[in-house]
């Protein structure tokens, strides 16, 4: 679709130029895209399972391991508070890890596919 074509009557403006369905299907089955998909999924899926499990473990410890959570670590600071703060720390850490992965591994691959497809429109 040419970018200067008038929008179809009665609908809102079409926005940016869209590649054809055939182009999307071709790209989806290309090795470059398979590589991008793998880079995203193999990082995001296991990490999601990991942080959800770690969070549930914390919830279960709060519920069923009162004695352990009451252990004093320093002064009045006990294990419960340390593990709670550890949830904050791991959240910040995972956000940072993912963003670094995305910037170095995902963005270049995504940008390459995007600019190639947009050149073909």
């Amino acid at each position, binding site marked *: 679709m040419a970018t200067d074509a008038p929008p179809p009557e009665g609908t809102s403006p079409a926005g940016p130029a869209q590649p054809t369905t055939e182009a999307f299907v071709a790209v989806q089955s290309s090795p470059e895209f398979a590589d991008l998909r793998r880079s995203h999924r193999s990082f995001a899926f296991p990490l999601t399972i990991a942080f959800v499990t770690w969070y549930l473990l914390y919830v279960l410890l709060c519920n069923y391991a009162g004695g352990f959570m009451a252990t004093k670590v320093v002064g009045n600071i006990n294990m419960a508070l340390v593990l709670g703060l550890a949830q904050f720390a791991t959240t910040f850490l995972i956000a940072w890890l993912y*963003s670094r992965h995305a910037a170095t591994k995902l963005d270049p691959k995504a940008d390459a596919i995007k600019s190639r497809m947009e050149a073909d429109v």
Partner: protein
Amino acid sequence: MSAAHALYPTVQLAATEGASEHRPLIITLFAAFVVATLFITVWAGRQTKSASDFYAGGRQFTGFQNGLAVSGDYMSAASFLGIAGAIALFGYDGFLYSIGFLVAWLVALLLVAEPLRNSGRYTMGDVLAYRMRQRPVRTAAGTSTIVVSIFYLLAQMAGAGVLVSLLLGITSDAGKILIVALVGILMILYVTIGGMKGTTWVQMVKAVLLIAGTLLITFLILLKFNFNISDLLGTAASNSGKGTAFLEPGLKYGVDNISKLDFISLGIALVLGTAGLPHILIRFYTVPTAKAARKSVNWAIGIIGAFYLMTIVLGFGAAAILKQDDIIASNKAGNTAAPLAALEIGGGSGSTGGAILLAVISAVAFATILAVVAGLTLASSSSFAHDIYANVIRKGQATEKEEVRAARWATVAIGVVSIGLGALARDLNVAGLVALAFAVAASANLPTILYSLFWKRFTTQGALWSIYGGLASSVLLVLFSPVVSSKPTSMFPDVDFAWFPLENPGLISIPLGFLLGWVGSLISKEKADTDKYAELEVKSLTGVGAH
């Protein structure tokens, strides 16, 4: 975020100590905030011309700006006053909420924010319906968006009445209704005039005020204890009268096996609900790219995380410097613990320092309520106009102008309905409404979002089963839970039809939502549209053709 436990119906034993004598100052600060935000709204309204301006703020916000606005949209008065109050009364257990609310952002960051930004346009329904038959799935997505947002909105409105009444020392029913109406009218003005642009700026201003106010009180409390956290905790524990148990989990949720199970259910709903909340999701459309959406979430995680860390100091600080009886006398759920602590740390009742701090904290709480209700109203009116009016009723034939006009009228209608329901609900236990909003978001929206983005064989039937199944099961389970009947804290304490023992339905309804989406797709006669999936998958990961 709305601490579900926080906003109980308040038998107003006593207005906040000192509130009435400082009323002129509090009202002046409230008024200053209202005038400033209305000014911003009118300014934003002048720049709102196209549908993309109204729905998505013209997609011109930076990652940092949107991160602030996301934080402003997410941190409700209940998390400010509610979590601090819950910590002040129940110690460690009050802190459990904030952990779930924060960890939840990782689901949004890793799986939802970027693909959504790349493949959608204005609403959550854009992504849910992308590969599906438009009309049924848009209807379902619009229904669940409006249900989640209205429950959430009601909780905020009812809470607003209670909180602002307490802070201003208003106890009459007429006064409370007036405040609910005022909040409703302001949110209608913000959204109809300013659209997403105005709402975003209001949320950004609110986030800055909230962080600054919390930082100030946190600093003053830490100063009092010479920055010795252990000393602060020790004083809180002994002053609470509960000893070291105050610093350990269990005072609130460890009562019996049912309450422990309820805590697991709540934890799952919190952690999976956030990434399915429509008013949060539409915020990602306000930035130009997926990278900016990622940056927004990172800023939001930083800001929200820092805020929740400060509420720990605020809550334990309140427990350390106030008497438990005074906190409970002011508000049974502890909602006024933070303002009371501000009054105390500023020099106590009657002092100028105390008066100023109390007024500042009260104004921040009010700003917080307004920014959150504006975001919720925008999410539901956008979904009505874009999903239901433009795509279902007008079958995609509505012009941009007609669509925005429909959105503005929907805002007025939703505003009026919320004022009415909010006035009726002002004495109800709103805890159930918020728990319900999170549970519905996690059961009805999240499975469909994830399947749509990542599962090739997902079908229209799967989407419909999952959305309606998750919606119906969570609503029904809450209806038959102790939230609604059987307990003194229930909405209807005098009757008992509560056969479901848990207050939060998530433990059942979330797995059910996922299961229904899967089974519905597998036994569907209609095969998944693989061409459409190719489009969605390539778009979502690369941003090709993104609006």
